[in-house]
């Protein structure tokens, strides 16, 4: 497939519908059962809870995001992270509308052990979906730093970045967990940024863009390292596009922000929750009552309806 399939005859739509409303900046955190929301001209609009969202069958592209499965984690916050990953996959398999594919935004494993990667693959493959991965910092911990690259990074550039197209949407998987500098945040690096600029060159501004990476590309809470040092550079390259969606993991909770025509969203983990920014001494695993855990773990499904320049994200917890 040509990278420029969708560029023909669309130059007249080369504009950014949300620019005049760039002042809008909203941050929303959902702890409940999930919400379908859409963006139109930069204004987020809630359409209701999951059930009604499910009832409106998506006409366009639908894909799933899972994140932070931390296979191998066995501490008090969740002694069986493999089990909750299995539950998440079972829920995906039970979804009435089958998604086109899945993205995994990193921290597949907890310690990058071969057995952890094997177990993750054994469970995730049960969804029988193509999975597009980006690595988390927990996926590069093996001595030779090769298990992730060998298992998932083939055909990718650098430490594992790449792009692909699906249903007219351009997907970009970035790596911001290597070469981190003392005192800093996540890091993309000059080589990856140059690749990104080149990847977007000549692409029609009406092409919907989905960028996914492990650590949030926007600054969520620098005191806990929740942000990307040079993330603003990447966002500079994509912000001229009419519809941009940035999907991240790492912080093990749902957080959303809309800035102009760029929508930011972080997904829940399938392994353990982490505290809201600044509400605990550290971002470490948060121990909650056993009957509360599954309400804080989950997956996200993302629907894109062509022509609408709209994108809907539904966060579904494992329970509740």
């Amino acid at each position, binding site marked *: 497939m040509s990278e420029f399939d969708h560029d023909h005859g669309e130059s007249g739509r080369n504009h950014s519908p949300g620019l005049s409303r760039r002042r809008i900046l909203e941050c929303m955190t959902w702890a409940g059962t999930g919400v379908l929301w859409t963006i139109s001209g930069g204004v987020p609009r809630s359409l209701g809870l999951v059930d009604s969202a499910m009832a409106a069958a998506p006409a366009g592209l639908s894909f799933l995001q899972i994140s932070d499965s931390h296979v191998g984690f066995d*501490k*008090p*916050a969740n002694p069986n992270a493999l089990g909750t990953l299995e539950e998440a996959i079972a829920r995906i398999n039970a979804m009435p509308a089958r998604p086109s594919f899945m993205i995994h935004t990193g921290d597949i494993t*907890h*310690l*990058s052990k071969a057995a952890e990667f094997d177990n993750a693959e054994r469970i995730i493959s049960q969804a029988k979906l193509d999975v597009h991965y980006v690595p988390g*910092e*927990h996926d590069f*911990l093996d*001595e030779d730093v090769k298990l992730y690259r060998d298992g998932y990074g083939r055909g990718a550039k650098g430490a594992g970045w790449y792009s692909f197209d699906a249903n007219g949407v351009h997907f970009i998987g970035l790596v911001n967990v290597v070469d*981190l*500098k*003392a*005192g*800093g*945040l996540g890091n993309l690096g000059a080589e990856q940024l140059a690749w990104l600029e080149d990847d977007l060159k000549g692409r029609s501004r009406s092409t919907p863009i989905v960028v996914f990476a492990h650590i949030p590309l926007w600054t969520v809470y*620098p*005191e*806990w*390292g929740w942000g990307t040092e040079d993330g603003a550079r990447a966002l500079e390259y994509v912000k001229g596009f009419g519809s941009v969606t940035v999907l991240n993991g790492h912080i093990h909770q749902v957080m959303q922000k809309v800035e102009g025509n760029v929508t930011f969203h972080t997904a829940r983990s399938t392994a353990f929750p982490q505290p809201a920014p600044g509400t605990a*001494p*550290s*971002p*470490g*695993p948060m121990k909650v009552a056993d009957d509360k855990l599954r309400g804080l773990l989950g997956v996200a499904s993302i629907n894109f309806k062509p022509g609408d320049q709209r994108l809907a994200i539904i966060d579904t917890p494992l329970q509740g």
Partner: protein
Amino acid sequence: MIPFTLRVHGKLAMAAAILLCLGAHAFAEDTEVTIDNFTFSPAELTVKVGTTVTWKNHDDIPHTVVSAGKFRSKTLDTDDGYSFTFTAAGAYKYFCSLHPHMTGMIKVE
């Protein structure tokens, strides 16, 4: 002196052994930096040349101890430790390469 100290237990015997090993060097007591709540504690530590510093991770999340060009631990899972002996004076800044907002410094005199 030796027969006497060998008769006592624990720290005294250890101190005697260290004194014997060090010879002309100043007394350097090995010491520990703990990792709790994504924080090195103490964040700054001053030690004598020859001191071995051991980092101990008490978090439920792995960390590393990295000083560019000087030393680099493997990944420390919960309760894992890493030791480094400082043989030259200087200021050694270090950080966790997984969570780079975690920083610390060892001053060696």
